[in-house]
């Protein structure tokens, strides 16, 4: 799958705020990012539907390799360099799903016809990251190292059936399209670790970049209410505005 790099504008930033003139570091850091998330996530479906009185096995492979990211967070410095943060990220994937199926012949048992094609499949991954943060401030450059649990919710396009074209004598068939449905997972728990680097050009404002790796296993409801385990998360890279108060 080929995701789109959607650079929504680097808003944001995280963290360390410090002005050389200041003697104390800011308490609150706000970041807003745009970027991409890369992963090795794939969604693989394998199921049967009934056609022409026989099972028609359908296989679907969706590579969720790259998605567009919008991310925002806040960090509250608690004691010294230690803080707590919360970050909400939304990653959207839009990919071609490869669909293959074996469609039974209308006139004969055990004479399936192979078809293959692609259909668009979208995925929206919403993740809330709770972070323990370690701040490494300096005069212009703040670095935050963070990690903690993540909660994921996934909305995923899944294939439910295939539509194909055929004509007499029906010994071959051609993929036309796939019927799809959107499945939303229950909240899945995972983890995240990362680093945020901010360059301040004033006391309260700067720009920065973030890299976060997150991971979780989510369960989708697939065709026939079959549970479909999918990986969530990946390596996120983004950049944007940093505010510090």
């Amino acid at each position, binding site marked *: 799958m080929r995701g789109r790099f959607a650079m929504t504008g680097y808003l944001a930033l995280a963290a360390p705020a410090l002005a050389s003139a200041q003697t104390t570091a800011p308490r609150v850091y706000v970041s807003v990012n745009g970027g991409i998330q890369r992963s090795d996530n794939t969604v693989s479906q394998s199921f049967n539907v009934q056609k*022409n009185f026989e099972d028609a096995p359908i296989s679907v492979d969706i590579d969720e390799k790259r998605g567009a990211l919008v991310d925002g967070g806040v960090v509250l410095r608690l004691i010294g360099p230690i803080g707590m943060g919360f970050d909400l990220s939304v990653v959207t994937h839009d990919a071609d799903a490869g669909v293959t199926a074996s469609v039974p012949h*209308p*006139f*004969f*048992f055990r004479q399936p016809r192979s078809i293959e094609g692609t259909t668009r499949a979208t995925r929206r991954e919403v993740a809330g990251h709770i972070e323990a943060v370690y701040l490494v401030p300096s005069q212009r450059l703040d670095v935050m190292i963070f990690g903690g649990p993540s909660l994921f919710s996934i909305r995923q396009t899944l294939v439910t059936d295939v539509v194909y074209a055929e004509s*007499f*004598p029906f*010994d071959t068939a051609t993929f036309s399209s796939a019927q799809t449905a959107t499945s939303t997972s229950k909240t899945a728990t995972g983890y995240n670790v990362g680093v945020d680097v901010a360059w301040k050009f004033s006391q309260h404002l700067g720009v920065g970049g973030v890299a976060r790796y997150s991971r979780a296993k989510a369960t989708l409801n697939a065709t026939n209410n079959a549970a479909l385990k999918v990986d969530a998360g990946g390596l996120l890279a983004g950049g944007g505005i940093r505010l510090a108060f």
Partner: protein
Amino acid sequence: MHVLRLLVPAAIVASIVFGGSAGHPLQAQVRATKVAATTFAELRAWDSTVDRMKRDDVLRLRRTIDDAMLPGRLHERFEQFYQGVRVFGGDVARQSDRGLTVSIFGTIYEGIDLDAQPRLSLDDVKAVIERRSGVALGPGRVPELVILPDETGYRLTYRVKAFTILEGYEYFVDAKSGAIVLELIGAERQAATSTLGRGQGVLGDDKKVSISSQSGTFVASDMLRPPSLRTYDARGDVNKVLSFLNGRTVLVTSDLASSTSTTWSDPVAVDAHAQVGWVYDYYFKRHARRGLDNNNISIVSVVHPVRRNDVSTSSNEVIGLFYVNAFYCCEGVMVFGEGLPPGFVTLPGRQSWNFLAGALDVIAHELTHGVTDFSSRLIGRNEPGALNEAFSDIMGTAVEFFYQPAGTNVLQADYAVGEDVVTPGGIRNMANPGAFGDPDHYSRRFTGTADNGGVHTNSTIASHAYYLAIEGGTNRTSGLSVQGIGTANREQMEKVFYRGFTQLMPANATFAVARTVTIQAARDLYGAGSAPERAVTQAWTAVGVN
């Protein structure tokens, strides 16, 4: 166990009646010129003759067909006419390759000299038939004016088919006097033979049937294939069947075999409907033929023409036609016999008869009669009749091998005919015709008048040649060996016989003409000196046809 003293095929032998006392002078003896032109000199002479006869309106082009197997080839089929009246059996089939004539086969009747104006009206003719057969012909049955060549000369006659409860007949009525001058068994059928949703067939196998849904009921009307394929359930009403066959009534949607769900419970309807479709598919896939007439004519099947349990009170003739038989009537209509109840057998051989729609080769046999009816129109008696039956057996077997694995068990392909429903053994055997007392060599042919001149018996001469051309082996009578093309090349021989019998064969062909046209077909398709040409040549020689 009940034993029916039914002598099959004796119970269905043809009666050929020549009327010589009509009070009209007969023509001089019939002179028929058999045309089998394949050499340059022959072709040059006959090409110009055919063109001249066409200009003189002696030959009329019935149809032109592009060759589905050889691009650039064209087949013209002419019929002979005399003063605008078709000469029965007079026709010419000319094959050309980009304008260059390749072969001409046919029969031309010469010396015809008669008044071609009939005295009888069509109503008069129908009245004659009704008096003879006891059945009233409806508006759908229009007699055809033809000149009939027979042993005594040429006659102006009306040709019409009629079905009685006993038999299907083809009548030739003298158009001047009203005398019936020739009466043939009119149904081209499986002699003495004894015949989606989803459902199980007669032999317990799962099948899909292409059906239609109408008002919540599923009916046996195939909408997926190019032609309309419909299967009607007569529910044992033989009078309705006869009325339909004679054009007095039409079958309507409520007569279609039906089911309240997509799972069908009548194995006979399942087998008839599914397998008719399979045969259509075979012809399309193997020979690029679009149905019986190559123009997707509707195919109508009728099942349950009688009630099985009425067999004890039925005459041998009814049993011969509607129980232990299947037949192609005409214009794409077939009827499949009911078989016999368990415990009933026929003699000799003490054979049991299941529903005839259960046998794929039987269905293919009958549909092939339709193919013949729309192509060569091989006349249904004597040698052309035997060739007609042989071609149906050959294609019946070819269809079996197309869909079933080779073997001798049920639902396996072999060279026995009807073996899945007529047990043990079937009704004919192309590998060993002698097993049923049928000839494997021309010298052993039946020369009597029964069975329309031995059309079923003598068919094995040609069908055995087909067997030898594929499998190879030695003819038991001649001792001559044939190097067959092998089972892996079966398709080649199917195409050779299909081409020969449907595109090159004239209506009044003899075995010798069949030899020539199939050899020509092998050359056309695979070249002179090819393995198929050698095999088919050796095979005809081995069965004594030179």
